[in-house]
C-alpha cells in the first residue's frame, strides 16, 4: 500500500514538473506581451519531433556513434531550434497583434496551433502515426526499500534546475530586469532605452526553449511522440497557468502541481478515471475561475470609474 502510494506521489510530482515547464512559458509570455500565446503548447511539442529528426540525420551522417551523446546532443539542438521557432512565430504572426484586441490575438494563436499540428502531420514522415520516443534514462535507484525510477528523478531535478535558472534570470540578470520592466510598462521601459522588440524576442526564445524541455520530457514519459499530444498538453499547461494566475511564475508552478495532482488522483481512485481525467481537470479550472477569476495567485484588477 505504502509503496503504491509512494509511486503515485512520484507520478504526481513528475507530471507536475512537466506541466510546470510548459505553464511557466504561458505565464511568462502573458506577463510580457499581455496576450495569450495559445500555440505555446504546440510549439513545445515540436521539440520531440525535431529531436527525432536530428537523431535520424546525425545517425545517417555520422554512422554509429555513442548513442547517449548523440541523444543528448539531439535534445539540445531540438531545444534551441524550438526556441528559434518561437521567435519566428512572433516575427511572422504574433507581432501583428500587439495593438489589436486581445480576442484577435487569442483566435489567431489558436489557429496557429492548429497549423503547427497539421504541419507536423504532413511534413514529418508518417506524421499521423505515433513515433516511439526513447526514455531519457533507464533503470531504478533503490531508496531504502523503495525503488525509484531514475527517469522521474532526472525529470524532477532538471525541472527544478530550469525553474531556478529562470527565477535567477528574471530577478538577477540584466535581461531579466529588462523583461520585468517591459512587462510592467512598455512605454516607460522604452524611455529607459530598453528595446521592447528585442525583449519580446528574448522572451519568446526563453519560453519556447523551456517549453521544449517540457515537451521532450512529456514524450519521453509517454514513450512516444504524437502530433496531437499538444492539444491536451497545451490546454493543461495553459489551464495550469490560468489557475495559478497568468503572469505569476509561482502561480504557474502551483497550478501545475494542483492539476497534475488531480489528474493522478482521478486516474488512481476513480473507476475508469483515465477516460474522465480531463473532465475533472477542466471542472476544476472552471470552478477556480468562477470563484477566483484572476487565478489563485493573480492580482485582481478592479476596474472602477
Amino acid at each position, binding site marked *: 500500500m505504502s509503496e503504491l502510494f509512494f509511486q503515485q506521489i512520484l507520478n504526481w510530482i513528475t507530471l507536475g514538473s512537466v506541466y510546470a515547464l510548459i505553464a511557466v512559458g504561458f505565464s511568462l509570455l502573458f506577463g510580457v506581451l499581455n496576450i495569450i500565446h495559445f500555440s505555446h503548447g504546440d510549439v513545445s511539442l515540436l521539440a520531440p519531433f525535431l529531436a527525432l529528426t536530428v537523431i535520424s540525420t546525425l545517425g545517417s551522417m555520422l554512422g554509429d556513434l555513442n548513442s547517449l551523446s548523440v541523444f543528448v546532443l539531439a535534445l539540445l539542438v531540438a531545444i534551441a531550434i524550438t526556441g528559434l521557432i518561437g521567435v519566428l512565430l512572433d516575427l511572422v504572426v504574433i507581432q501583428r497583434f500587439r495593438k489589436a484586441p486581445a480576442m484577435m490575438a487569442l483566435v*489567431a494563436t489558436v489557429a496557429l496551433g*492548429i497549423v503547427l499540428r*497539421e504541419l507536423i502531420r504532413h511534413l514529418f514522415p508518417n506524421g499521423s502515426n505515433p513515433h516511439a520516443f526513447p526514455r531519457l534514462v533507464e533503470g531504478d535507484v533503490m531508496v531504502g526499500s523503495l525503488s525509484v525510477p531514475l527517469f522521474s528523478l532526472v525529470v524532477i531535478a532538471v525541472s527544478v534546475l530550469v525553474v531556478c535558472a529562470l527565477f535567477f534570470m528574471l530577478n538577477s540578470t540584466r535581461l531579466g530586469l529588462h523583461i520585468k520592466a517591459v512587462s510592467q510598462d512598455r512605454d516607460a521601459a522604452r524611455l529607459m532605452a530598453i528595446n521592447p522588440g528585442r525583449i519580446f524576442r528574448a522572451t519568446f526564445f526563453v519560453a519556447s526553449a523551456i517549453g521544449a524541455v517540457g515537451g521532450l520530457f512529456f514524450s519521453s514519459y509517454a514513450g512516444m511522440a504524437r502530433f496531437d499530444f499538444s492539444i491536451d498538453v497545451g490546454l493543461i499547461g495553459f489551464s495550469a497557468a490560468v489557475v495559478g494566475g497568468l503572469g505569476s511564475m509561482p502561480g504557474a508552478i502551483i497550478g501545475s502541481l494542483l492539476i497534475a495532482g488531480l489528474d493522478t488522483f482521478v486516474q488512481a481512485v476513480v473507476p475508469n478515471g483515465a477516460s474522465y481525467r480531463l473532465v475533472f481537470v477542466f471542472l476544476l479550472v*472552471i470552478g477556480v475561475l468562477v470563484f477566483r*477569476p484572476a487565478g489563485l495567485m493573480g492580482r485582481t484588477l478592479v476596474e472602477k470609474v
Partner: protein
Amino acid sequence: MTRSEHSARAASNPVAGMATVVVVQLAGAVFLRQFLLIEDWRLVIGLLLIFGAALVLMERVPSLEARVEAAFARHSRLALLLGMAIVLGFPFVLEGNTYALHLCVISMLYAVLALALNFQLGSANIPNFATGASYGIGAYASALLALNFGVSFWVALPVAAVVATIFGFLLGIPSMRTRDSYLALVTIAFGVVIHQLLNNLEFTGGPNGLVGIPVPELFGHSFGDPLVIFGQELPSQANFYYLSALLVLISIVFARRLHDSRVGLAWNALRTDELAARCQGINVTWYKVLAFAVDAFLAGFAGTIYAFYVGFISPDNFTFLVSVTIMTMVIAGGMDNILGVIVGAFLLTLLPEKLRAFSDYRILFFGVTVIAFLMIRPQGLFPQRLRRYGD
C-alpha cells in the same frame, strides 16, 4: 457622389433598381448552382477567382456597391420575395444531384451555427469556443428523446433547443466574472468536458454514438421518402433542404431583429469598450449571458436537424475543431454582417468538399484562413454595415 444622391437616383428609377436586384440575386443563384455541380477542381478555382474579382470590383468602385445596396434597400420586398422563390426553386435546378443537395443542407446548418456564434464573436467580441458543444448538446438531447421515449421530431426540436439554452446559460455564468483569455479558456474547457462526457457516458453510447435516429414525419409524409411537388420528384434530401432553409430564414430574421434592436447595440457597445458601456447603464453581465444563451439556442436547433438528417451521431461530430471551423466562417465572412457570415459558412463548407484532392489539408486550410484574415482583413469579406433605420 454621396450615398443619398445615389439612393435618390435609384429611387427615381425604380425599373433600374428592380433590375439590379433581380440580376444580383439570379447571378448569386447561378453561381451557387455551378459551384455545386462542377466536379473539376480547376473549374472550382476559376469560379473562386470570379467571386474574388466581383468582391474586388465592389471594393474598388464604391458607387457600384452603393447602387446595389440602395436598390436592395429600396426594393426590399421584391428582394425578399425573389430570394424566397430562388431558395424554393433551387432543388429543381440541381438535376436531382443528391450530393449537391446534401451539401446545401450541411452548408445551411453551418450557416445557422455561424449566425449563432456571430452574436458573440461578431457583435460582442466574446471568444466562444463552445458552439460545437452546444450543437452537440442539441443533437444528443433530441436524439436521446427520440430513441428512449419515442418523442417525435417536432417536439424534440424545441425541447432540444431549450436544453441547449440551459447549458448556454450555465456556460454564461462564469462569463459574469471572467473575460478575454480567461473566458476563452472556460469555453474551451466546457467544450472538452462535454466531448469527454459524450465519449464516456453509458447512455450516450460512448464513442460509437447514437444510431438509428428515426426519420421525421409530417402529415403522414416521411422525410425519408422522395418529395413530389407538381409532379416533379425530388430526392429525399429535399425534405431536409426545405426544413433547414426555413431554419436559416428564421435565424436571419432573428439575427436582423436582434442586430437592429437595443440588444444588438448593447453588444456592439460592449465590444467597443466594456467600461464605457457599463457607464452608459448597460447591464454588461446580462448581455453577455444573453449572448451565450442565444448562441446555444440556435445551435441546439441546428444540432437537432443534423441528428435527424444524418440519423447517426457520435462525439466526434462535435469536437473543438467544429467550433474552430464555425469561428473561421464568422471571421472570414465578416463579423456582424449577416450576409457575410452566411457566405462564409457556404464557402468554407463547400470548398473542402469541392477540392477533394486536397481534403487531407482541410484543417490546415482552416487554420491558415483564420490567420490570414485576422492579419490582412480582420473585418472579413463583408464588413459590418452601418445600421440604417427608417429607410
